[in-house]
């Protein structure tokens, strides 16, 4: 049964209980002064969709249709769910950080993810009445460990630091895309939430990108092992963009709730049936470039890292539950596919190898903690 909350103060109490229940250690992580932050309004009017040109909606009551309110609540719930999920996924790494820098970086990432969850919960409690409070409570009741989080990536295990850096590189980067698409939302409190969140999220992406660069530069972690972790995480990141030919994305655009990633720069009329595909492709192009950058530090061309094809190991969309190789070639038998997956995805022995390597000194290029302490 969902905990009944009367107001946001009740939610804060429940949040503290959630921190206890997932075993978050006392100290800086717990003492952080959480706040809902709102950026200055950048554009006062609705920027796209049917209501384009009208004043942005300052409250839910200004939204002219219940279906829009329901869809908006859903968007906020999904965003909030990912924030708390990621803290649940990452908390086990606190005990064995490779450097002080990485520990501080992890703590900052986790703290900011909690703040993002706080922000979404605040919106739910402040704007969506009893239903919002119920959903805000549920954000703290689902558990990544139990596979209860709403999106696939957020039920995966983050067992190693290689996982963490891959996760922040690819999954948090999806987060950046989602936040940017919401930053042009017609619902003013949501769009103004995104500025501060995007600033914080950029540190998470940087942590992932730098972490992977440092691992590759150190040369201890085999590229083939890193590649398996890319194959584990990238398809889940593709899934996060949602279904192909999505009606939900279509309506979210028509209603002005969620724009394109490049909404303000893109003067072309969108193909509203392909909005998720469009965002996913922009994301794919971005991560391909980032992986190419990593390859600059891998001398042997045959060991270069790559981004799997969109068809590989998908759980959502037109390729969901179909059998393709990482290069997008079809596999026609279930047995062969199951055997193939074992050759490309991390297996138990890969986790052991990674854990062993992560115990070695210098498996990741050193980085001084000073840069973080100064911030």
């Amino acid at each position, binding site marked *: 049964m969902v905990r009944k909350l009367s107001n946001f103060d009740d939610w804060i109490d429940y949040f503290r209980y959630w921190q206890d229940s997932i075993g978050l250690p006392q100290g800086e992580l717990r003492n952080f002064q959480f706040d809902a932050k709102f950026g200055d309004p950048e554009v006062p009017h609705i920027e796209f969709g*049917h209501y384009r040109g009208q004043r942005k909606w300052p409250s839910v*009551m200004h*939204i*002219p*249709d219940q279906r829009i309110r329901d869809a908006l609540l859903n968007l906020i719930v999904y965003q909030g769910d990912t924030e708390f999920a990621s803290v649940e996924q990452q908390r086990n790494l606190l005990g064995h950080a490779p450097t002080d820098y990485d520990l501080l970086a992890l703590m900052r990432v986790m703290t900011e993810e909690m703040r993002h969850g706080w922000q979404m919960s605040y919106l739910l409690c402040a704007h969506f009445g009893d239903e919002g409070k119920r959903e805000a409570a549920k954000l703290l009741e689902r558990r990544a460990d139990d596979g209860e989080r709403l999106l696939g990536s957020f039920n995966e295990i983050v067992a190693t630091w290689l996982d963490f850096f891959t996760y922040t590189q690819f999954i948090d980067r999806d987060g950046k895309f989602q936040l940017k698409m919401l930053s042009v939302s017609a619902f003013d409190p949501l769009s103004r939430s995104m500025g501060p969140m995007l600033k914080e999220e950029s540190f998470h992406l940087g942590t992932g990108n730098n972490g992977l660069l440092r691992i590759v530069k150190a040369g201890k972690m085999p590229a083939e092992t890193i590649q398996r972790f890319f194959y584990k995480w990238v398809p889940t990141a593709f899934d996060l963009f949602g279904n192909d030919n999505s009606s939900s994305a*279509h309506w979210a655009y*028509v209603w002005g709730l969620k724009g394109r990633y490049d909404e303000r720069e893109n003067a072309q009329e969108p193909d509203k049936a392909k909005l998720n595909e469009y965002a996913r492709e922009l994301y794919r192009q971005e991560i391909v470039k980032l992986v190419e950058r990593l390859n600059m530090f891998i001398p042997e061309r045959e060991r270069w890292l790559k981004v799997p094809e969109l068809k590989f190991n998908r759980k959502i969309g037109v390729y969901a539950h179909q059998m393709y190789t990482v290069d997008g070639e079809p596999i026609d038998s279930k047995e062969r596919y199951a055997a193939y997956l074992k050759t490309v995805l991390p297996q138990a022995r890969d986790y052991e190898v990674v854990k062993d390597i992560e115990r070695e000194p210098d498996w990741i290029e050193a980085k001084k903690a000073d840069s973080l302490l100064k911030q």
Partner: protein
Amino acid sequence: MATLTQPKVEQKTLVRYRVEDGLGIVELDDPPANTYTHEMMRQLDDAILQARFDDTVHVIVLRGHGDKFFSAGANIAYLNSITPRYKYFFCLHANETLNRLEQTPKLTIAALNGHTVGGGLEIGMACDLRLAKESQNKIGLPEVNLGVLPGTGGTQRLARIVGKPRAIEMMVKGETFSFDRAKEIGLVHEVFPAEGFWEQVVLYAKQFCPPNKASKAVGLIKRAVQSGAEVPFESGLTLERELQQQLFQSDDAKEGIAAYVEKRVAEFQGR
């Protein structure tokens, strides 16, 4: 022999009516507590009829003048001044007025902007939806304390809204309570913050007006429920079918279905 001549009352405006952006706004205005007399009921009746016949009105919103009372019900001094037989006709007309409000095929909303007790709540209960202002204001049917019962439909409508057992308990105790409590038991639909209450009510009401909503469908849904719930089930289904037939032929249904197929926002016109 008792006369049925209406007692002499000051002829003044006790109910203010205006139309704004598709809303027919009806304001009970007799300070300090917006209590009603037969004169006010006649003016209320007239406002309801104006709103009913006006095609530009899609939703009717009732409110009290000022910020302390929606209405404290019947004017006790007035009641004290009239004969029992006159009182009977006064009640009969009040019932007819509230029935007219209830049966008008347009959505009606009571904006409970202050204390809502006795006959005030009875007026509120004849509306389809009740929105209350966050406050220390009270709501309830305390008529039993005067040795009478809630006689403007209160015993019937309250039981239909909160159920017989709770309704009886509330009325025999003469209980008045907060809007928050009223929301818990389903007597009030929403409690909005005091600041900007009226703006919230207007925004809430306008969601049911064109172009946002097919207000004819809204009105007939209300009509199907209000009238259909009072007749045998089969008759209710018949009513529902006939009203649906009207909607099938409406411009808004054509627009609604076309917009759905074309995945665009419908532009309803209330026709």
